[in-house]
């Protein structure tokens, strides 16, 4: 075990194992103070008392969507991560025969700075790219590029579903987004009958892995088998996604390692890089360039807004003058909007933040009563910026008094959100 940015990690870099059997988060029974906070925030209820004293544990990985919200809210640091590729990545970075590719998600650049003392939410994208270069990554590619590709694929898919609606054999409406790995596992586990509604698109990281080892290899004249891809995420559930056996479409494992924002900060500190004095640098071209539509993937409602910026123009044939689609921006709860598209009609959309809200929309779809075309779901309240792999809220563990206040507040919020 090792401590990384206030969280304990098991050094464990699984290969070729069934991720369904891994505890990506688990409670250290010797540290659990039985406060119940984890149970309060867990969307599935799989973290619960295992004895009369009230010690909690994740009772079975089958019911866990690996969101890490329990870990991010435990005031006592009792919850640890079960998977960390940090050591393996350091080895690969040293190996002259391995071409190591960085693939950071949008939300990482809005959290990473906090580990180096910047105010909450400071954008540090340029320094992040510089730090990755200093760490020795051979290609500074970026998951935001494939967020843009996701919009092309998922937007096109949606337009197809709308056009073919009602025809025999057509994929059903509404279409659910498939970017959030906690949500995807949730749907597979608790709403398997709705899987045809799931977009067939891989998530942005699911797309960047295979593109790096095919298109990227070709463009850079690199042997694909030498490429080692590192997914850098604000998320714990992405570690599960990276291990999905079906994600091997490049002819190799598409994603070789997955770490989160906290672990990247740890790597930068361990390498002795002075993050705050780094210049702002650009990612490498081909698989690095991105847009504002890609960066908003980090927020709840962001995928929806980015998709609408495409759908509007494709369906109407007109330019969308103002790309801000404020109606779908979601802080908490469920947001719905009717978007009028000239020459097409109304696109009905919904955005759910948190899986208890997602379940409400799923129940509507199940009952055949869902009026929507497109539904975005994020497991973590607020979206990836609040992911379970992001730097912790510094207030949470500041003192017992403060953490008690934080706990009361979060319960208060949880009730408000649910109501």
């Amino acid at each position, binding site marked *: 075990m090792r401590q990384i940015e206030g969280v304990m990690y098991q050094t464990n870099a699984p290969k070729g194992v069934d991720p369904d059997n891994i505890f990506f988060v688990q409670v250290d029974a010797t540290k659990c103070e039985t406060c119940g906070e984890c149970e309060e925030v867990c969307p599935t209820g799989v973290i619960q008392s295992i004895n009369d004293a009230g010690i909690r544990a994740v009772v079975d990985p089958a019911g866990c969507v690996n969101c890490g919200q329990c870990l991010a809210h435990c005031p006592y640091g009792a919850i640890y991560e079960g998977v960390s590729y940090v050591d393996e990545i350091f080895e690969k970075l040293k190996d002259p025969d391995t071409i190591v590719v960085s693939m950071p998600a949008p939300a990482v650049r809005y959290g990473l700075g906090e580990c180096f003392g910047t105010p909450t939410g400071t954008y540090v994208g340029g320094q992040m790219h510089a730090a990755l270069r200093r760490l020795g990554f051979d290609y500074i590619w970026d998951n935001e590029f494939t967020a843009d590709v996701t919009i092309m694929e998922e937007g096109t898919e949606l337009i197809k579903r709308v056009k073919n609606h009602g025809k025999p054999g057509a994929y059903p409406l509404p279409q659910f987004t498939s970017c959030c790995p906690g949500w995807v596992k949730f749907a597979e586990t608790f709403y398997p009958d709705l899987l045809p509604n799931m977009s067939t698109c891989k998530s942005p990281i699911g797309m960047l892995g*295979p593109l790096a080892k095919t298109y990227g290899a070709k463009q850079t004249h690199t042997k694909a088998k030498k490429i080692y891809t590192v997914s850098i995420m604000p998320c714990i559930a992405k570690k599960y996604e990276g291990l999905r056996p079906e994600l091997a479409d490049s002819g190799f494992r598409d994603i070789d390692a997955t770490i989160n924002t906290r672990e990247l900060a740890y790597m930068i500190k361990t390498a002795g890089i002075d993050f705050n004095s780094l210049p702002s640098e650009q990612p490498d071209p081909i698989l690095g360039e991105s*847009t504002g539509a890609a960066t908003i993937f980090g927020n709840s409602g962001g995928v929806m807004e980015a998709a609408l910026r495409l759908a509007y123009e494709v369906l109407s044939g007109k330019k969308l003058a103002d790309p801000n689609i404020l109606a779908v921006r979601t*802080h*908490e709860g469920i947001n719905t909007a009717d978007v009028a598209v000239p020459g097409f009609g109304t696109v009905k959309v919904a955005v759910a933040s948190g899986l208890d809200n997602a379940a409400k929309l799923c129940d509507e779809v199940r009952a055949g009563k869902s009026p929507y075309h497109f539904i975005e779901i994020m497991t973590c309240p607020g979206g990836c910026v609040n992911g379970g792999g992001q730097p912790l809220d510094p207030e949470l563990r500041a003192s017992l008094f403060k953490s008690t206040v934080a706990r009361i507040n979060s319960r208060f919020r949880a009730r408000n959100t649910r109501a």
Partner: protein
Amino acid sequence: MIMNRRAFIKACGIMTGYAVLSLNMVKEAAASAMDFVGIRQKSVYDADANPKIYKIRKSQDNPMVKKIYDPKTGYLVDGPCGNLSYHLLHTHYVDRSAKVAALKAKGFKLNF
């Protein structure tokens, strides 16, 4: 011992709750805690709208996206949802309900 500690923590929580309530600060404290996420969200939207950070705001206008989907020379020459896209960029899902059904059969309660 553990029960005592648990009771103590509970009492702590209740007392703090009253202290906070009596100062009529619950709302304010809740707002400031939620801000932690809200501030990060705002920073994301600010970057999207800042031409110094993101010159382009629509995915379809990304020059590298145009390059990869170029109908003549692009790697994904047959466009979004084309053959190579389906092979590399699309996937399928697995019904994972059986294991959770088994868990419930053992007597564990879940939220769904």
